[in-house]
């Protein structure tokens, strides 16, 4: 009974242009980066920009979006201040941390690092020896792709028949 009444209810009134509340980033392309205790003054943000493509929208043959990653960082100390390190390196990691892809080196200011084509990923910046191919050093900045915020409604009342 409640369901039927709820289902038939309509909102009446004039057309409204409604805006949505702020998402974790300001859009589907923005990644706020959070610092760790090792670098209390470090700040950062990343932006995903479609990789160059004749179609404007860059995807792989199986449909994964391909983005260039732009990182804007500040307050990063000299890597050697954290140990035997020479550079900061950005990595894209799958959400279960099983896959890590080296994107490129990051400095204070703007850095354009490599491309990422994961549906959801973590963006992790670590201090590493020069040319490190695998991540081993301390994490200084990290964030998650906007797509990682995709919500799960499996248990949401909207799908369980309970009025919100």
């Amino acid at each position: 009974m409640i369901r039927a009444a709820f289902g038939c209810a309509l909102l009446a009134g004039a057309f409204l242009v409604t805006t949505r509340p702020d998402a974790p980033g300001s859009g589907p392309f923005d990644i706020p980066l959070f610092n760790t205790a090792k670098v209390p003054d470090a700040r950062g943000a990343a932006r995903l920009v479609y990789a160059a493509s004749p179609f404007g929208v860059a995807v792989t043959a199986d449909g994964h979006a391909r983005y260039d990653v732009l990182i804007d960082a500040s307050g990063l100390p000299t890597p050697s201040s954290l140990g035997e390190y020479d550079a900061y390196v950005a990595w894209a990691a799958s959400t279960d941390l099983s896959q890590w892809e080296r994107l490129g080196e990051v400095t204070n200011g703007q850095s354009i690092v490599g491309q990422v084509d994961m549906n959801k990923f973590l963006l992790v910046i670590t201090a590493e020896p020069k040319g490190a191919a695998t991540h081993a050093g301390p994490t200084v900045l990290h964030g998650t792709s906007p797509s990682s915020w995709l919500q799960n409604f499996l248990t949401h009342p909207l799908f369980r028949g309970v009025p919100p």
Partner: protein
Amino acid sequence: MRWSLGPRGAAIAVGIALVMGTPIAAVAQGGMAGMSGAKPDTTKPRAAAPAGHVHDGMAMDMGMPIPMPAGMPMMPGLVGLTPDVGEFLPGKGVDPRTLPMARPSQTIRLKNGDTLDLSATLVRRTVGRNTFTMYGYNGQVPGPLIRVTQSATITVRFHNRIDLPSTVHWHGLRLDNRFDGVPGLTQDSVKPGGDFTYTVHFPDAGVYWYHPHVREDIEQAMGLFGNVLVDPPDRSYYSPVNREQTLVFDDLLVNADTLIPFGWDAPDFVLMGRVGNVLTVNGEPHYAMTAAKGEVVRFYLTNVSSSRTYNISFGGAPIKVVAGDVSKFEREERVPSVVLAPAERYVVEVRFERPGRVAIVNAVQAINHFAGEFEPEVDTLGTVTVTGSAATPDYAGQFATLRSNADVATDIARYRRYFDREPDRTLRLTVATSALPLATVQFMNVDTAYFAPVEWMDGMPDMNWLSTGKQVRWILHDEASGKENMDIDWRVARGSVVKLRIFNDPKSFHPMQHPIHLHGQRMLVVSRDGVRTKNLVWKDTAIIPVGSTVDLLIDASNPGDWMLHCHIAEHLGAGMMTVMRVR
């Protein structure tokens, strides 16, 4: 994500396919009345479908009549609801047995000065195991492939023999404004039984298409579309290939053995546009062709779907992209796949190197909103059987070469000085809603954390189906004047170069990509999100992803009143259009 078929069931504004909430008959008589942003009175009770357009046996059974993605339940709050519109399918009152079966597209080669009779008619069309009453041009789906030489001018005598008003829009052609086919703007709509004569000029080489500009969500979806191939006089314009082939991509929304009816007094599926579950190539769900080993085929690709954006590949066969909507690229490129938004065209060359079966696939990462996950969606659209015999001549060498097109680069060079200037106009893409089902509103209010730049699938077809042109108004918002859609006063001088910035607001109620189409002119996508386009091509349609800012440079050389609109048919039908007046 696989689609399952739910229980059977089912559920005009015309003018530029667009007059919200205005019945077809009224628009046929009244032209542009209602185009100036008039809003439907949503307080009225549900409008009765006009006589002659209610389909017996198609009444809603109050169950879920549309297919849902497998594993996704319908929201309880939507159960039992139906769209707040009357319903329509072609051919009411017509005995389908009296209708001809639709035939495949046939090529008609026309010379300068020739005349073509083009009739929109009812046809019977078999799609898979089902036969439906649909539309076709000259009894064909796709309509006849019109093949002409660049700079030709032809006459097309259009005969409207369907049960709706119609027109023919010549998509992408920089032709005389009087023949652009926009009812209420460049001509009156052609009533059923009426005729209209178009003079069609072809200034640019490439692949173009024609379709109605009246209720595209119905007429185009039901089969009214066809290609035009404009051959360049210079035989070396393209690289040599063994064969040329047009591929027209479309999708139909079918539940078991019936088409899902269309909204009569306003479009339905207006939030996302109608995304079909039966994908077709050249009207066939199982397209097939044969190629010789090593054969190089030049494909002319066109997306005529109402809403679906494709990601097309050829089973790993190498693809070279050659041209876009209105010109070749500055440079040919190898690509893994071709992203094709509604109304876009691309010219690609593919070499089938190994014998065997090559699948033409659409492969995307769909979003399962229920599970909060991405899921691969792969649809085989057709097959190419590559035989063991070698293609002759062997064009492997030419295919391996990526040409630079000096003619295109030289043409575009004249416009580079405009690339970095401030935009002449900025449009923000957004949406307004009223009287949507409460459950839809609530869901949209809680599902705010992420919206994909491009939605490749309809992940919430129940909500989408229930949204109509009475409840949703898609908006081109002019940032300078605050005006919207047809209220925008946009005048430009003939011969000027106009920089148009379009921002797709990610914070709107329902953010979604929009393929924005400009009639009668050509434009360059000079940058996306501040990044300069590295390989330019003249376009007439450009996809604007959610959250993106795209700068377009318009060569406003063709005088007249030209529509700029979203080419998602239901978005157009819900008002997302304006006019650029070039004098």
